[in-house]
């Protein structure tokens, strides 16, 4: 990085006046680790990485992946990582009015002064924010127009596994686990800078690494109807995988936010990957193989983390936390070591069939947080189709245990629009919720019934890449609305709070997740017309997206309500995620047999 330009603090103080939650834009949190600029004479030897989360501070600071990469990079003396979050609408306006670029928190460095900008993309509806941040950073949004050697721009994360919609904006994409590949990338950036090579050299070199997809090195050819005819070269990009999670300690001294984040607790990843094989679940496929953390080190590190941070809640994260083989021992030991500290536990992903009485007792030994379960479907038939192997009796037994042990609220997730779904399956969602309410009531202390709360969340199914259902079509908006409408009309209201997604939002999300390179034009068009924070209900403007698809000459239905044939080349076929198409097709065929 040749020329480090920073935002003057006095100017920042000035423009923060009248801004909502100014704590989003100032640093000085406990746990920040990037290098001090003034103290090092050789700051210019450092490679500067901007870790960019394209949503607001409170959301970004709840993301464990960001904390992990931040911690790893800043431990190395040759590199420094600083965090950048999306400015909220009011602060973006102030930045633009004052002709100021978006900046990092730690040293207030303007985004375009970094050597490498890395976006972590958790959700497709953040694509517009990514373009907005590049623009706010004074950086040309299109890769082909960025003629300068720096900054380099990349993206990774679960919503980048189909890299095509963002391919025209990124110099390269990172697929898979980030812990090892991030260091290889930074070494390459250092060599690129120190040897004064050109960008073509860099992109060619970096493409040799596992997990790196360089869109500029691939060509897509299309049939007239829009399907992909061929991809050149045929070589697939193998995702980056850490074989042994224990090689990297958990982050024991994370950055502690200045203002309350969405998840305000000490997060510990206990396991990566899931062996259950639910057919709709993209995360279950892309994070394979299953890797457990060794429990004794986990206990030691988690205890140190609680001591370092002062948090009173610890969250054990994985795709299916109750499946962690040593979960009871882990909770037992952590409880023992923190007896006087009033620590509470959160297990965000619990399966009905792995919640034992003992586990419930361990979770409740601290302050009770809510319990969350995902039945996904109301009927056994649908659960068999999606391979969510849970019987109704297991669910109700679980509910019985939870409420008889003093829990007062649970959250349930359901999906509608699943493959081979019938009206009868929708009716069964309501029936199941009624049974759960009855079971809860029967096991709830009579005097406290008014405190019983069941939060039900209903989402539209989207056939995601790299799942056995990647070939099926999404329900059209009429069907989705009918199904939502039936549930909302018939679900009991007493004790139940219900939330659901806007069907139009689900359609756009699906189109983006299954989109090809051409969808990039739609993303750009939507952003230019003001699309921002599309994952926020009050900011999402579906009309803009629908218009931009039309303007680009693309039919949204091509990506959503059209089923893909098993022989069709899919936009994400350029990636080898570690699960073969043959396996996915076999699973899809199995699901048909459960109909």
């Amino acid at each position, binding site marked *: 990085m040749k020329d480090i330009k920073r935002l003057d603090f006095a100017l920042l103080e000035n423009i*923060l*006046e009248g801004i909502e939650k*100014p704590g989003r834009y100032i640093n*000085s*949190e*406990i746990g920040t680790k990037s290098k001090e600029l003034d103290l090092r004479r050789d700051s210019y030897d450092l490679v500067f990485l901007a870790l960019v989360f394209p949503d607001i501070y409170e959301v970004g600071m709840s993301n464990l992946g960001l904390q992990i990469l931040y911690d790893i990079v800043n431990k190395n003396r040759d590199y420094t990582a600083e965090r950048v979050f999306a400015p909220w609408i009011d602060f973006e306006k102030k930045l633009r009015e004052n002709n100021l670029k978006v900046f990092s928190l730690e040293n207030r460095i303007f985004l375009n002064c970094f050597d490498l900008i890395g976006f972590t993309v958790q959700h497709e509806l953040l694509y517009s924010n990514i373009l907005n941040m590049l623009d706010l950073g004074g950086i040309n949004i299109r890769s082909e127009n960025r003629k300068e050697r720096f900054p380099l721009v990349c993206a990774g994360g679960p919503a980048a596994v189909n890299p095509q919609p963002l391919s025209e904006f990124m110099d390269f994409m990172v697929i898979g686990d980030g812990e090892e590949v991030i260091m290889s990338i930074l070494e390459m950036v250092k060599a690129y800078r120190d040897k004064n090579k050109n960008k073509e050299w860099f992109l060619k070199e970096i493409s040799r690494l596992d997990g790196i997809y360089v869109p500029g090195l691939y060509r897509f050819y299309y049939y007239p109807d829009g399907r992909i005819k061929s991809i050149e070269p045929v070589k697939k990009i193998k995702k980056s995988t850490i074989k042994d999670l224990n090689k990297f300690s958990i982050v024991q001294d994370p950055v*502690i936010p200045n203002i309350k984040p969405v998840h305000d607790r000490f997060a510990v990843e206990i396991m990566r990957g899931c062996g259950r094989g639910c057919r709709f679940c993209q995360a279950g496929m892309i994070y394979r193989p299953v890797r457990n953390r060794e429990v004794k080190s986990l206990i030691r590190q988690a205890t140190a983390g609680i*001591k*370092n*941070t*002062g*948090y*009173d809640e610890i969250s054990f994260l994985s795709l299916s936390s109750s499946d962690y083989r040593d979960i009871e021992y882990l909770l037992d030991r952590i409880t023992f070591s923190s007896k*006087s*500290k*009033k620590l509470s536990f959160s297990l965000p992903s619990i399966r009905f069939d792995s919640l034992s009485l003992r586990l419930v007792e361990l979770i409740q030994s601290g*302050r009770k947080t809510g319990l969350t379960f995902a039945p996904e479907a109301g009927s056994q038939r649908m659960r068999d189709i999606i391979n969510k192997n849970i019987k109704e009796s297991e669910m109700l037994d679980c509910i019985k245990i939870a409420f008889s042990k003093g829990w007062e609220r649970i959250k349930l997730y359901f999906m509608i629009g699943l493959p081979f779904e019938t009206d009868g399956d929708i009716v069964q969602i309501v029936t199941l919720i009624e049974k759960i309410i009855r079971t809860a009531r029967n096991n709830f202390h009579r005097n406290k019934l008014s405190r019983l709360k069941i939060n039900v969340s209903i989402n539209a199914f989207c056939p995601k890449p790299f799942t056995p259902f990647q070939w099926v079509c999404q329900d059209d908006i009429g069907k989705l609305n009918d199904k939502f409408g039936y549930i909302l009309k018939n679900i009991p209201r007493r004790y139940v709070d219900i939330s659901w997604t806007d069907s139009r939002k689900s359609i756009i999300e699906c189109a983006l997740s299954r989109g090809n390179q051409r969808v990039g034009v739609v993303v750009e068009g939507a952003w230019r017309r003001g699309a921002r924070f599309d994952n926020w209900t009050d900011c999402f403007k579906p009309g803009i997206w629908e218009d931009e698809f039309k303007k680009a000459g693309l039919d949204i239905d091509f990506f959503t309500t059209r089923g893909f044939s098993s022989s069709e080349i899919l936009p994400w076929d350029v990636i080898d995620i570690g699960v073969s198409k043959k396996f996915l097709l076999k699973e899809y065929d199995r699901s048909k047999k459960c109909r």
Partner: protein
Amino acid sequence: MRALRRAEFKVEYSLGYNPKPKIIFSLPTPLGVESMAEYSDVLLDQRIGGQEFKKRVNLRLKPQIQVIKAKKIAAETVNLMNDIAVSLYSFRLESRSADKRLLERFYTDIKGDLKTESDFSRSIFDLEITQDKAGFHIFFLKLFGYAKIFIKENNEFFKFNNFYKYFMDWLKDYKIDVKGVKKEELFVLRKNILKTPMEVV
């Protein structure tokens, strides 16, 4: 609370279904206002002197937030939030005008209109105004505002933001801008004398 846990203090909790830590803070500081007077009472499950407490907590806090003083109090001490009677705010004001008559009118009206006749007059315990040594364009106003408005029928908290908005508008007539606001101190009333919470311990 997290700093106390990081410093390995054991805070007492209330009993019941939803135990809460026994820690109280003084009145919240408005957004954007620097504060030199934040007070907190905390009940610990251990004996410790004020100096030791201060040293251990400050090691676990950032330099921008530090404990200035810590003293032991009796467990029966009155709730801090309810006890605060008066807040002292200082305003750094800058005049955009060199018109001496305007400034004289400002001096007169601030003690007249603002203190005794304005909508906020009943919130104002007292105010002082001094001129900066550097020149006559900068003033420091000290506003002693009632933390609570004591009325026969009703008790309401002084809403600083409402006062600030009113004050900014009021200053426009005199071509004066607010350049900085600070919460300087909090006071409790003991036998009609204002004392800081530390002085009464």
